[in-house]
């Protein structure tokens, strides 16, 4: 019967083309508006590393002032001091940890005729790549010896490798950064964690850094941090004093696959802080935190409250469109009471008619969904146009297959929901009511 209902639905739509077009338009516009916002919300709130998000933890220990918390009500700093980051890294070597910070370098292209240009860089430790599942096109990251021995090695992004070496395998080539020579050990494959969870200090949706080099090399070379640096205690002196200060600027992550691992690391953190207290540091009560990736995104309000409000409004608009659709469907059903009466007389049960009209609504829903996808595409292009020049916006206005499917399913469910009352009315038309009308 499904094919029969499908045929009847298409016939009905054809015989009431204007009314059907209005319904498709109402659903399409509602879905378009809704899915435009849902798509952006989806990208903003997506899990950037689903296979590991529950085992990767950002480390927070509270070295802040005794007089006030870092943030109300009692939030520890989101980053670590250099002292704590390196202490935790060296003392907790039984755990897979990563310390890193954002900096920048000036690249001298291999072709001397080209002008130098600035790139963003990340100073980090060797485990950054395996821990964050960073994919490689050529070569790999460096090993622990490179960290220890301060080897001048570097990993490039695919885009930078394309720019400097035309996309060829550049592993083993030399690269000049701020006049110092580095050996290329790896080239990343395309990697766009969205949001950029491992460093939420600046723009959540900016692209990852263009080069990666050992943390020890960056510190020895006094590469400035270009991320946030927050201090509660003044310090005097040069770079060494900065490294010894209570300023927080290093991101510390740890991978803890099991609950036992987490418990052991928490104990390790507590012991570390207690030890530091004996040196006169950590004046506040013990306040250590381990937040996994999704918790960390939530704490940092990666999805702006305004977007959530907008999402609610978009769904309200969809509901308004659906109420209009329900009204139009009701009008259509009321025009077809004679047909319904006749079918009842010829043996159609209420359930049969209900099925027939629900399938007709489903066809309208799918058509509305297809129109909705087109409207969503237009909506996203509109947003892209409004924010021309803001690179990260381009990454938010991408409609993937899951969103396309969601649009169709949402349209289908919406159309069926809108059709429930009109269809119920149709199924309850008295069989004898219209059969004598001329």
């Amino acid at each position, binding site marked *: 019967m499904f094919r029969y209902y499908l045929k009847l639905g298409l016939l*009905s739509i054809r015989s009431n083309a204007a009314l059907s077009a209005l319904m498709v338009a109402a659903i399409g516009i509602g879905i378009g508006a809704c899915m435009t916002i849902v798509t952006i919300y989806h990208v903003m709130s997506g899990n950037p590393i689903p296979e590991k998000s529950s085992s990767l933890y950002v480390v927070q220990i509270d070295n802040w002032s005794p007089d006030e918390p870092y943030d109300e009500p009692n939030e520890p700093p989101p980053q670590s001091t250099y002292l704590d980051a390196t202490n935790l890294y060296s003392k907790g070597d039984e755990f897979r940890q990563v310390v890193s910070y954002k900096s920048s370098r000036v690249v001298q292209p291999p072709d001397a005729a080209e002008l130098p240009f600035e790139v963003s860089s990340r100073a980090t430790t060797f485990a950054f790549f395996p821990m964050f599942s960073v994919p490689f096109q050529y070569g790999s990251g460096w090993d622990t010896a490179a960290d220890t021995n301060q080897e001048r090695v570097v990993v490039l992004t695919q885009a930078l490798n394309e720019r400097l070496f035309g996309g060829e395998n550049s592993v083993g080539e030399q690269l000049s950064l701020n006049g110092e020579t580095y050996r290329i050990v790896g080239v990343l494959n395309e990697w766009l964690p969205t949001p950029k969870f491992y460093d939420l200090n600046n723009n959540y949706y900016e692209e990852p850094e263009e080069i990666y080099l050992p943390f020890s090399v960056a510190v020895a070379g006094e590469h400035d941090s270009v991320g946030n640096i927050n201090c509660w205690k003044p310090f005097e002196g040069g770079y060494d004093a900065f490294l010894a200060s209570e300023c927080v600027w290093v991101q510390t992550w740890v991978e803890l696959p099991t609950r036992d691992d987490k418990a052991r690391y928490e104990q390790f953190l507590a012991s570390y802080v207690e030890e530091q207290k004996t040196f006169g540091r950590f004046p506040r009560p013990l306040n250590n935190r381990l937040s996994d990736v999704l918790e960390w995104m939530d704490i940092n309000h990666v999805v702006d409250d305004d977007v959530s409000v907008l999402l609610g409004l978009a769904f309200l608009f969809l509901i308004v469109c659906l109420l209009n659709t329900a009204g139009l469907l009701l009008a259509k059903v009321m025009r077809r009471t004679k047909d319904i009466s006749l079918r009842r*007389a010829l*043996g*159609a*049960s209420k359930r049969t008619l209900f099925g027939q009209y629900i399938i007709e609504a489903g066809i309208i829903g799918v058509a509305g969904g297809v129109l909705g996808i087109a409207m969503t595409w237009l909506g996203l292009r509109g947003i892209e146009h409004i924010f021309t020049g803001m690179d990260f916006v381009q990454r938010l206005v991408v409609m993937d297959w899951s969103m396309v499917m969601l649009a169709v399913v949402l349209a289908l469910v919406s159309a069926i929901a809108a059709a429930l009352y009109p269809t119920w009315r149709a199924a309850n038309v008295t*069989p004898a009511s219209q*059969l004598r009308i001329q």
Partner: protein
Amino acid sequence: MLKMTHVSKIYRTDTVETHALREFSLTVDEGEFVSVTGPSGSGKTTFLNIAGLLEELSGGTYELDGRDISSLTDSERSKVRNEKIGFIFQSFNLIPELNIFDNVDVPLRYRGFKAPERQRRIERGLELVGLASRMKHYPAQLSGGQQQRVAIARALAGEPRFLLADEPTGNLDTEMAVSVLDLLDEINAGGTTIIMVTHELSLAKRARRNIFVRDGRVSDRPPEIRLAASAGQV
């Protein structure tokens, strides 16, 4: 067999109560051709609607083939309508957007027949009414008489035991009306029970038995119809 005993039908609004049938009792045996006549508003069509399970009765009992229909669910009533009863309406009631083949197909779809069986029944029905060559035509392309013949083919396609006709010639000219009545005679001769509602006494004479309805009751004193004797006249 169709048997109604003390059937009543009351239509109610907030302020008005209309008794369409009162203590209506009637038995129609297998293979009969019964006409039901009476003045406008006498309850003829209400009787036919209840007989065809298109409306529920307010009181009394109604048995169809020995089964009390008042206890049936909507699905069961629909099934009985589909399998045992064929309808012919004054206004033909064909579905304009479906061609003749698909119009006749409607009750067969609800019956759940497979495609070959449906095709066989449709072709046979349309052959019976002389419209086998017009299967792909749409109702608007046919004359009134042809449309009524399609409606008859549709009513017969499911091989019902009862054919209920409500003013089947009301929208036809005399010549077409005669041909439709001839067809009904032929169908009745094949064993199908026919109950035909009409307000024209001349048509009622074609039936083997006439029931006269007045004020929602079967009247004891039918009008000047002489049944059977005048069969064949319109």
